């Protein structure tokens, strides 16, 4: 109940924001009857209507995980965001080993397995990507090697 209502409410607000933002689209002097605004606004309206339906007629509450699992999920998201930022400046091997290790630990809390997974995956995947697929990955950046 509550979850659907909250999601529906957030979706309605987003849809309205989308309509406003679509309405601010610049229009060039060469334009067709619909123009660049028409279709996005139409979508925004349908979006808002169906989101309102979710608020008014919500489904039963889904089974949400406990607070601890939520913490673990939030941490996983942070790790993935950090990985996205680290991939370029720190090279492939180091961030991959850390990120893969942490994710592995989160799925099954066994430090030894997790460490081996991290190191193994980063090494094996690097070899596959670099030599079998020919992607231009940097193993370790120069500045780290001194």
């Amino acid at each position, binding site marked *: 109940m509550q*979850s659907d209502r909250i*999601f529906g409410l957030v*979706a309605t607000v987003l849809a309205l924001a*989308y309509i406003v*933002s*679509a309405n601010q*689209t*610049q*229009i*060039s002097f*060469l334009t*067709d009857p*619909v*123009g*660049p605004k*028409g*279709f*996005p606004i139409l*979508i925004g309206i349908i*979006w808002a209507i*169906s*989101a309102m339906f*979710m608020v008014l007629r919500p*489904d039963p509450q*889904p089974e949400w*995980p406990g607070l601890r*699992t939520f913490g*673990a*999920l939030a941490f*996983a*998201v942070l790790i*993935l*965001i950090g*990985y*996205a930022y680290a*991939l*370029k400046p720190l090279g*492939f091997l180091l961030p*991959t080993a850390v*990120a*893969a*290790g942490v*994710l*592995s*630990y*989160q*799925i*099954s809390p*066994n430090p030894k397995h*997790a460490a081996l*997974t991290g190191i*193994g*995956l*980063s090494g094996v*995947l690097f070899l596959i*990507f670099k030599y079998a*697929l*020919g*992607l231009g*990955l940097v193993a370790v950046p120069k500045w780290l090697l001194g």
Partner: protein
Amino acid sequence: MDILANLALGFSIALSPYTLMLAVIGCFLGTIIGALPGLGPSNGVAILIPLTFALGLDATSALVLMTAVYYGAMYGGRISSILLNIPGDEPALMTTLDGYPMAKAGRAGDALVLSGVASFVGAFLATLGLIFLAPLLARVAFLFGPAEYFALYLLAFCTLGGMASNNQAKAAIASCIGLAIAMIGVDESSGLPRLTGGNLHLYDGVDFLVAIVGLFAITEVFFFIESHGKHSSLGVKLDKVSIPWKDIIVCRWVMLRCSVVGFIAGVLPGAGASLGSFMAYMSEKSIAGEKGGFGTGVAKGIAAPEAGNNAAAGGALVPMLTLGVPGSGTTAVLLALLMTLNITPGPTLFTENPEVVWGLIASLLIANFVLLVMNVPMVKIFVRVLQVPPWVLMPGVTMISFVGIYSLSGSYFDLLLMVGFGVLGYIMRKLDIPTVPVILGILLGGHMETALRRAMLLSDGDWTYLFSSPISIGLWVAAVAGFVAPMFLRNILKKPQRVTD
């Protein structure tokens, strides 16, 4: 005779040693991907697309490789359905209903071989159907103007939303989110940016591959973290594998009937493989009646959904190739592949790039035989794959997704977007909001808008033009019916729930 000449052209491409090798590799990889718990056809194919792109294959080769993976994953999906009770994707759910009980009763090998044969029959007949139906539909598709295309896209969203989800409003939200995302970026006809919020990274729009990999692969990782990979231990023993001739012969008509049902369901735009396996299973269940024992692990209950599912997968290629409208989540991913390779599906594909279409069809026929050979005697090899523990598999999937998306543009922004889609996918799946319409929206949004704007340009802004031809009226009626009818049928046609231990 046209068909024979076209097939000859196709086989001349598909039988070249290089293409043949790609098809075999694709089948092998596909079966493994399908069998891995937590990786189904859609997310498996999705994470491979950016990597195929990086390999620099030409369009035909890439297409042959990836469709072989697609067919292979459909075959492989049954392995985790039967042995682990984990469907790789939605259509495979029906196979667990009888497959898992049969495996628990000590007949795991029989169940695997029988489902492999049923998959072969379904996929083979559907490929034949594709050969005959696709050129016909391509000819009809030439009659489609912008108004008809707009109605057709709408039909795809309506049937997908109506059939595949439990709540119409939620399916509509998902479609709108997808379409709304597709609008972001520079508007094609005016050249001005739209809805970017001034963010330069968004000027090129949101790449559909980023969304697909995020919604399918990254979301799955979050689910594994939530469940700690608990549901994936192998509880069933597989001893020796022999061919259960008796069961296969008993099921021969079931397989044929279900192939036809599945193929028809697959051809409907937007309905796809889930509907195919569902209708196949339910119709056989009602034919067999109470005494049939469906749900307790009977042979027919395995043959029916597998034949239906694979026939639907083949049937879904008909609207995908001729009209550019995918019939299921996985075909949406294949459409993404075509668009990445700069091939525009549609009737012109058949006249302008016959070598692509017919080479693909010939490879599908070959892939099918390869898969039968791989999946019956060699099934034990693939069963080994199930023993890959989730704490190695899921980090591996994540890293492959990151590198694949990173190799597309080399920008961290796409990676962040992908994580964002992963979170969105988690929330949506928790709330029982389907994610496939989001992908369909991102894929088709641009085309849908273009069709609408062209139609309005032709009619000078007269809205009634959208309903002015018999074809478009038919499509509108079908769209409304496809969206509304399931609301009333839901009580009658209750989806069977997963069997639990």
